[in-house]
C-alpha cells in the first residue's frame, strides 16, 4: 500500500477526503440515475455520514455536514434546511450508537443504519407532504431506502481501506 508522509499536503487532503467526497456527492448526486433502471437510486451521503460519524472521525466536522445539507437541498430543490436536519439526525443516531457500543459489529450497525435511514426518510416524506404539499411517490422512497441499505456493506469495506491507509 502507498504510504503517506504525514507532513505533506497530500496527507492533509487525504484526511479531509470524506468531507470532500461528501461535497462532491451532494453537488453532483452520484446515484447512477442516468442508467434509467426503473426506481433505482440510493443515497450515498447518508451512508458516508453514518459511517464516519459512527467511527467518530475527527475531521468529519458537523458544521461542514450541515452546510452540505443546505447545498443538497439547493441542488435537489427541496426546502432549505431539510437535508441538513436529516444529516444532523444521522450524526446524532450514529453518535449515540458509538457511545453505547463497546464492541462494534458490522451486521448490528447495518440494521441500525436501516432503522435510521427509514426514520429519516419518513420524516423527510412527512415534512414535504404535510408542510410543503409536495406530491411524492412513496415507492421511490422505499426503493431508495432499500438500495441505500444494501450499498452500506460494500461501501463500508471501501471506507475501511481508507482508514487503514491513514493508520499506516
Amino acid at each position, binding site marked *: 500500500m502507498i504510504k503517506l508522509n504525514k507532513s505533506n499536503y497530500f496527507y492533509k487532503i487525504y484526511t479531509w477526503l470524506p468531507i470532500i467526497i461528501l461535497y462532491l456527492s451532494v453537488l453532483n448526486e452520484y446515484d447512477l440515475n442516468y442508467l434509467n433502471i426503473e426506481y433505482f437510486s440510493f443515497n450515498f451521503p447518508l451512508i458516508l455520514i453514518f459511517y464516519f460519524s459512527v467511527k467518530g472521525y475527527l475531521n468529519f466536522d*458537523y458544521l461542514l455536514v450541515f452546510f452540505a445539507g443546505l447545498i443538497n437541498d439547493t441542488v435537489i430543490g427541496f426546502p432549505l434546511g431539510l437535508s441538513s436536519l436529516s444529516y444532523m439526525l444521522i450524526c446524532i443516531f450514529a453518535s449515540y450508537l458509538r457511545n*453505547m457500543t463497546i464492541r462494534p459489529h458490522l451486521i448490528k450497525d447495518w440494521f441500525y443504519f436501516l432503522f435510521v435511514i427509514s426514520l429519516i426518510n419518513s420524516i423527510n416524506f412527512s415534512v414535504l407532504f404535510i408542510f410543503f404539499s409536495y406530491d411524492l411517490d412513496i415507492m421511490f422512497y422505499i426503493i431508495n431506502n432499500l438500495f441505500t441499505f444494501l450499498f452500506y456493506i460494500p461501501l463500508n469495506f471501501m471506507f475501511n481501506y481508507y482508514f487503514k491507509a491513514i493508520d499506516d
Partner: protein
Amino acid sequence: MASSRDDFIIAIRSAFLKKSTKQKFSLLTLVLVSIVIIILSNLDFKVIRYLKIGINEIVYRSTFFVSVPENFIKNSYFSVQQYSNFYEDYKKKIAELKKLKSENISNEILKSENIELKELIEDYTLTKNKILAKVIVDHKSPFLRTIIINKGTADRIKIGTNIFDKSYLVGRVIEVNYKSSRVLLLSDLNSNVPVSIIPGNIQAIITGDGVNSGKIKYTKDNLNESIKKQSIAYTSGTGSIFKSGIPVGKVSITEKDILINFYSDYTQLKYVFAEVELEIKSDTDDQVKLTTQTNTEKIKINLLNEELDILNDSNVKLIEKNSYLNSEKNLLNQKIIDLQNQILIQENKVKQNNINQEELEFLRLNLLYSSKCQKSTFKKGYRVGTKEYKDCIFRRGKNIND
C-alpha cells in the same frame, strides 16, 4: 437496571451536546438551526429567500463544474448506446421519413390555418420572444424532476415562464435567481398541465408520472373512453399557466392508465428556449405601436401569401388530376361503346345460331315424321311448307321424346 438507564441517558446527552475537540457546534444546536430554517422557508421569510438565492447562484455554477466528469461518462455511455442502435434507428428513420413526406402537404395547410386562427384569438397581441438557455444541471433526482438553466431575472425570466425544447413544451420556471432558474419538468409528479386532446377536442389535465412520461389525471365530463391511441395532446391555455396550442405529446393507452409520451426526451436536454415578454417603452409608444402594427400587417400579408401559394399549388395539382381523370373518363366511355357493340354482335350471332339449330332440328324431325304430318289422298294432314306442318313435325318429335 438503573445503571443501564444512566448509560442510555449519558449516551443520549453525549450524542446531542458533547462537542469533540474539532467540532465547533453541538449537534443539538445544528438540529435546532435546521428546524428554524425549515420553518422560516415554509413561511417564505425574506432573509431565507435571499440566502437561498445566494446559495443557488454559487451552487448551480459549482454543480456545473463538478458534474463535468460525470457528464462526460454519461455522454460517452449514451454515445455508445446510440452507435449500437444506429442501424435500427436508420431503418426506422427511413420509414418515418416516407410517412412524413406524405403528410407534409396537409401539414403545411394546417400550419397556415393554425397561424390564422391564433391571430384570430389574439394570441400574438403580446410581443414575445424566445431566448436560448443552457441546461447547467440536469440531475434526475428520484423525487423531483427539475433542471437548472443559466438564465434568471437578469434575462427577464419570471416564475411561470414557459420552457421549450424546439417547439415542444418541457416545463415552467418554479424558482428564479439572478442568473439561473429551476424548471419543473412536465414529467414531475407536481406538474399539472391543462391540455386539449385531438381528435375529439377533449379537455384534460395531465400530470407527470415521476419518471419520463405523463398520465391523464382528469378529463372534462369523464370522456376517458373517447380518447384514442396516438391522439395528440396540445396545451389548452386554460388557467393561463401555459400558452395554448403547444404540442405536448402523444397518447398511449395501457390497462391501468392513459399515458402521454412527451415529444422531448427530458434526459437529453442540453439547450432549451425560455419564452420571455419584451417590454415596450412608453416614450416611443406610438412609433413602436405603428411598427408593431406594420409588422403584424406584414406577418399577415406573408401568411396570406404563403397560404395563397399553398392554395395555388393545391389548385394546380387538382387541375392536373381533374384533366387526367377526364381523359380517363373519355377512354372508359369509348371502351363502354366498343363493348356494347361487341355485345350486340354477339347477341346477333347467338340469335342466328338459335335459328340455325331450330332449322336443323326441324329438318331432322322432318325426315322422321314427314309421312305422319303430310297431307295425302287417304290421310288428313297439312300441306308441306305451311306453319301448321312445321308445328306438327315439332309436336310429333316432342311427343316421341317425352
